[in-house]
């Protein structure tokens, strides 16, 4: 027993174990959201979705995963073998690495980096590379279209995302996500979306701009995760399945997992930057490290739900309209917000 304890408390072993926590979380969460997505979609569409595997079909995500696990792993002969095989893992790695800086609770954050936000923006760009690799390596014209669209889209929407993150860090005065969250601790009135813990006059002046920034961040993050109305890279009616047309079995499941992990990631980032992260909305009521995890996940889940809701309601934009929205609407508005907030903070 003692030797086991000694083994577990070695720094390397400990960090591997702590690092695996997000992975476990992602898998459990993906199963939950898979179920949630299908059920929400079904009820929006006046039907029931799966009802037969377990109570109200709760076992269906497991069945789906088992099915994908036992499927043959088809790699097209004409595909670029190495890139094709490695692309899904690159996509997933980019998302997973970003989980390192997410402050799940006041006592748990994978890596308490001072440049946390910066790290997050940097590693999540890896996803674009993976998707381009998949599109190119598939040697399929539809997949290339999907890959190229995806690259254009994600690069364009990283700008508004990054700029709105800048707004939050300006107000909180830190690039460390844990510090940004701590800055907002103490109740709903301290959240950055409502102006943070600034003096009242400053807070009221800043409020409209933080609200606009928050809405823009939400729109941009929907685009970042390639979901309707910005799901052009995998637009079924146009590009069959986009960049993952040729994928099957476990590799396809990796893309799927990465997509859902990314969905939570962007929601979690919005929550920790603008909605107080793990801090309780009622001040000291129901706060603490364990309740912190609860608040963090629940706040993010609200966003996940909203993204699902949007997905099953709206049609899709065309590629030029998509880029127009990013470059000519969201980005200029954000610049205006940054300038205004800068003035208010200095004055």
């Amino acid at each position, binding site marked *: 027993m003692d030797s086991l304890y000694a083994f577990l408390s070695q720094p390397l072993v400990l960090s591997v174990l702590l690092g695996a926590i997000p992975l476990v979380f992602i898998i459990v969460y993906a199963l939950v959201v898979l179920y949630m997505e299908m059920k929400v979609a079904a009820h929006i569409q006046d039907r029931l979705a799966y009802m037969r595997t377990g109570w109200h079909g709760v076992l269906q995500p497991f069945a789906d995963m088992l099915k994908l696990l036992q499927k043959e792993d088809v790699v097209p002969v004409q595909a670029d073998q190495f890139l094709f095989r490695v692309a899904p893992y690159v996509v997933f790695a980019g998302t997973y690495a970003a989980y390192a800086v997410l402050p799940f609770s006041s006592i748990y954050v994978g890596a308490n980096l001072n440049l946390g936000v910066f790290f997050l923006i940097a590693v999540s760009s890896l996803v674009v590379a993976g998707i381009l690799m998949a599109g190119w390596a598939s040697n399929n014209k539809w997949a290339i279209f999907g890959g190229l669209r995806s690259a254009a889209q994600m690069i364009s929407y990283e700008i508004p995302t990054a700029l709105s993150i800048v707004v939050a860090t300006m107000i909180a005065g830190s690039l460390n996500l844990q510090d940004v969250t701590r800055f907002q601790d103490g109740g709903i009135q301290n959240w950055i979306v409502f102006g943070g813990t600034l003096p009242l006059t400053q807070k009221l002046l800043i409020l409209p701009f933080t609200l606009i920034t928050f809405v823009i961040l939400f729109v941009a993050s929907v685009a970042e995760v390639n979901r309707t109305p910005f799901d*052009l890279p995998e637009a079924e009616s146009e590009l069959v399945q986009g960049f993952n047309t040729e994928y099957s079995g476990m590799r396809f499941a990796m893309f799927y997992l990465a997509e859902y992990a990314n969905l939570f990631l962007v929601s979690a980032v919005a929550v920790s930057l603008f909605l107080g992260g793990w801090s309780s909305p009622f001040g000291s009521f129901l706060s603490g490290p364990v309740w912190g995890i609860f608040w963090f996940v629940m706040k993010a889940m609200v966003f996940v739900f909203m993204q699902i809701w949007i997905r099953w309601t709206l049609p*899709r934009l065309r590629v030029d309209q998509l880029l127009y929205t990013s470059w000519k609407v969201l980005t200029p508005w954000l610049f205006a917000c940054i300038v205004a907030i800068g003035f208010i903070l200095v004055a």
Partner: protein
Amino acid sequence: MIESLSLPTNYVTKPDAITTSSGKTIRSQEMIVNMGPQHPSTHGVLRLEIVVDGEIIVDCIPHIGYLHRCFEKHTEHMTNYQQVIPYTDRMDYCSAITNEWSYALAVERMLKIEVPERVEYIRVIMAELQRIASHLIAVGTYGIDSGAFTPFLYSFIDREKILDLFEMTCGARLLYNYVWVGGVSHDLPPGFVEKAKEFVTYFRPRITMLNDLLTYNEIFVKRTANVGVLPRDVAVNYACSGPMLRGSGVNWDLRRDDPYSVYHKFEWEPQVGKGEVGTIGDCWDRHIVRMREMEQSLNIIEQALAGLPEGNVQAAVPKRIRPEPGGEYYGRTESPRGELGFYVVSDGSASPYRVKARGPAFVNLSVLPEISRGAMIADLVLIAGSVDIVLGEVDR
């Protein structure tokens, strides 16, 4: 918020040649992509060979025939004129009633049969129900084409109710074999009229709901307005018909302009595209024409149900139909897709000498390359969807 990219309608690419430092000339190329026959949004087994420059379509060549079943040849080997009717069902399988009706109309003209008035009313009710069912498929799949999945399921819920009415009447839900030469196969069952009236009152608000959800959605409008504009003269030159023609602002509807059956007794208006959100004849106009035609069909059904006369549902038809030799007759109806006609030639034997079908989907499809040049791939999907083809009828 979102502005459409304006492109010239006849976009011609000039690939730029670049000379590298080693003296090599590199040229950008256009790419040929096959959309179909296995593709989620070609509405069946249509193959569109598209030449693209990036995302912009330089040319689009439809290839058809994947569903060819020799319909016209089959008809020459029947032992009876009546036996052709189940085959016509399988042409435009989304709107079987109008197919049967067109053919029956041609044969009735051949035999100079007067059809009882009750039959005419039943046929009108059935054809208009069928039009709604068919437009619901068109509108629902159009939603999918534009990326919205939910309208599709909503319209299928409503279509199901129409199919229940058909099932109640003749047992079949898709291919009815209901309209026969000189009559219909079954009289309306007891309770049909009440159920149909119930449907009419149920369905009116559903159209408004579909409009709110899809038609007037900001993104949907931006995607379809000014896209795939079919000018009036081009539409006429290509012999387009149905919502395709009316969407371009041509007020032409066979139910009014070549009156058959009892349509002249009802009050209704053919719907035309007015370019409310863009140019006249764009994809949105064709979509709204379908939406409004459903309302008009409800009006017709309502009036026909109210005025339904009593009587026989089958005229006296000779057991073996042998029309005069050399007789050539054409029967046409306004199907949900446009003018559907059967040209029947008789040589005096028990089966037709020749049957030529004039399918509206086939004719409408021919204009697709004309209106899709210069559009983007995403637009092509919407343009092809707005033509509302049924491959069973295109290929026969």
